[in-house]
């Protein structure tokens, strides 16, 4: 049975004798694990892919991913991105501030920009190396996150309150590119597309419903129509948004450590695969024994439910290898 088969069984709710699926988000940790700088990881798909594969094999992870930073699409839109050696790439300045700026902003050709092209090439490289046996998670920036990347976070959040024309115009631009980028990654071999819309945890439910919910649904339907599944990732506490999020149609929902897994199960229902949700800071800072206890507690709660074992968000770069291994080993005693 391949890792892809296992995931399909999980989606379909079939009880099989296999281990709990395990897939924490790896970025900086994977780069360091392979002795690469984060700048190398974020700017060269070969390094990103090979680092993920090395981590996948060592920790027996059930999926691999192409996530690195929020600025792939922002770069394609025309922003200047710099690459500090050991930090997430930096967007030097917002590139839109007025309605006129938005109107003149051109949706990029994702095959032409080096940063979006790099991720597309990464998807193809994964497929070449894995022969389709391991689920590959592509990644796009969600519409509100991308709007914030383009406009500046504070400015965009205030525009949501002040200027619906600006807000709708920029969000509409963002979903065009989100779809283009998702399609390109699916055609290159991704089985799942992750949508990262971190900033949504910082807005109220009414604002989410007004500006984001239907756009999430539209992107998700578009991805489904092209044969891939969707993983929605919103960092932080999304408890207040769950009643709306349950309606957007994602297949996998990442839940950060602030969200109660039982409550999320109650709200989003048994069919959505929930991924999470141990606090990554605890996985980094606590002893192996504590990590084992946290994992056991979570797995006990999630027994019999559609769940992928993970941290609430990215595994931090300084996480001890033995702690991550302990999580994986603990999951061997649980069945999906």
């Amino acid at each position, binding site marked *: 049975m391949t890792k892809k088969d296992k995931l399909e069984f999980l989606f379909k709710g079939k009880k099989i004798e296999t281990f709990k699926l395990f897939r924490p988000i790896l970025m900086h940790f994977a780069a360091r694990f392979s002795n690469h700088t984060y700048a190398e990881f974020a700017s060269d798909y070969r390094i990103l892919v090979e680092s993920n594969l090395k981590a996948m094999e060592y920790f027996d992870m059930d999926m691999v991913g192409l996530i690195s930073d929020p600025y792939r699409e922002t770069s394609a839109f025309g922003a200047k991105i710099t690459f500090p050696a050991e930090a997430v790439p930096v967007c030097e300045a917002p590139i839109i501030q007025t309605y006129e700026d938005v109107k003149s902003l051109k949706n990029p050709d994702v095959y032409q920009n080096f940063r979006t092209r790099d991720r597309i090439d990464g998807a193809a490289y994964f497929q070449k190396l894995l022969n389709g046996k391991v689920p590959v998670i592509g990644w796009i920036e969600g519409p509100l996150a991308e709007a914030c990347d383009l406009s500046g976070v504070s400015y965009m959040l205030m525009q949501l309150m*002040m200027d619906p024309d600006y807000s709708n115009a920029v969000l509409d631009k963002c979903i065009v590119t989100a779809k283009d980028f998702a399609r390109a990654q699916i055609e290159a071999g991704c089985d799942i597309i992750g949508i990262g819309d971190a900033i949504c945890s910082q807005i109220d439910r009414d*604002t989410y419903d007004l500006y984001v919910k239907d756009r999430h649904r539209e992107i998700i339907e578009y991805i489904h129509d092209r044969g891939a599944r969707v993983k929605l990732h919103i960092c932080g506490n999304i408890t207040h948004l769950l009643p709306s999020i349950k309606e957007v149609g994602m297949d996998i929902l990442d839940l950060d450590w602030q969200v109660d897994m039982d409550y999320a199960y109650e709200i989003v229902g048994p069919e959505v695969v929930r991924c999470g949700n141990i606090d990554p800071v605890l996985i980094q800072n606590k002893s192996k024994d504590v990590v084992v206890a946290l994992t056991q507690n979570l797995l006990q709660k999630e027994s019999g439910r559609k769940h992928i074992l993970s941290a609430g968000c990215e595994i931090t770069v300084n996480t001890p290898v033995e702690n991550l291994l302990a999580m994986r080993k603990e999951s061997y005693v649980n069945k999906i």
Partner: protein
Amino acid sequence: MDELLNQIAYCVEFGKINLQSPYPPDMKGQPGADELTKEALDKGVDADMILQKGLVVGMEKVGIKFRENKIFVPQVLMSAKAMNTAINHLKPYFLEGNIKRKGTFVIGTVAGDLHDIGKNLVAMMFEGNGWEVIDLGTDVSSNKFVEELKNRPGSHVGLSALLTTTMVNMEQIVQEVRKTAPNSKILIGGAPVNEEFKTKIGADFYSPDPQGAVEYLNSIASN
């Protein structure tokens, strides 16, 4: 007079900046913190009274609602904008010493970290609560904090970090600040930090929300 001050507090609480502002929708066409503050000053209301009974009251409500998840970041940003608009009218009175600040709060996101939303929210809350705020921005080194504190004795310090990779830089800043300003209170905040980390690095206070930090330093200032 009380009615006018209540209106200013209400505008800050609900983020009504000025007459032209379309937000909040149910106050469209009404004067905002801008016009009402100017009106109060024109009518001879004491500037310190406007700060204490208008802006501070409004921002305290904002801080509490934010802590209780009744409002979120966009609403806080709108309130801060309304407050800043009002404070602009009060600036001459600050410069003349007619308004007494509770103290000075030096804040920055620590070295290596470029995130500013959390830091900005805390800075806004402090400013709206009658503190002089010196915002050193993001990626702030221990040297920069120390230099600022040398020029502003008696100030307190706020350190923000969003990343696990940068929260560790707080420890060095705490150590350097302690050498220069042993009586300054050092507050920390940000997604990866907690009470345990505060104790480990020797800071004085951790708050998961801006209002908690404000209440802590308010209590220090009132003693």
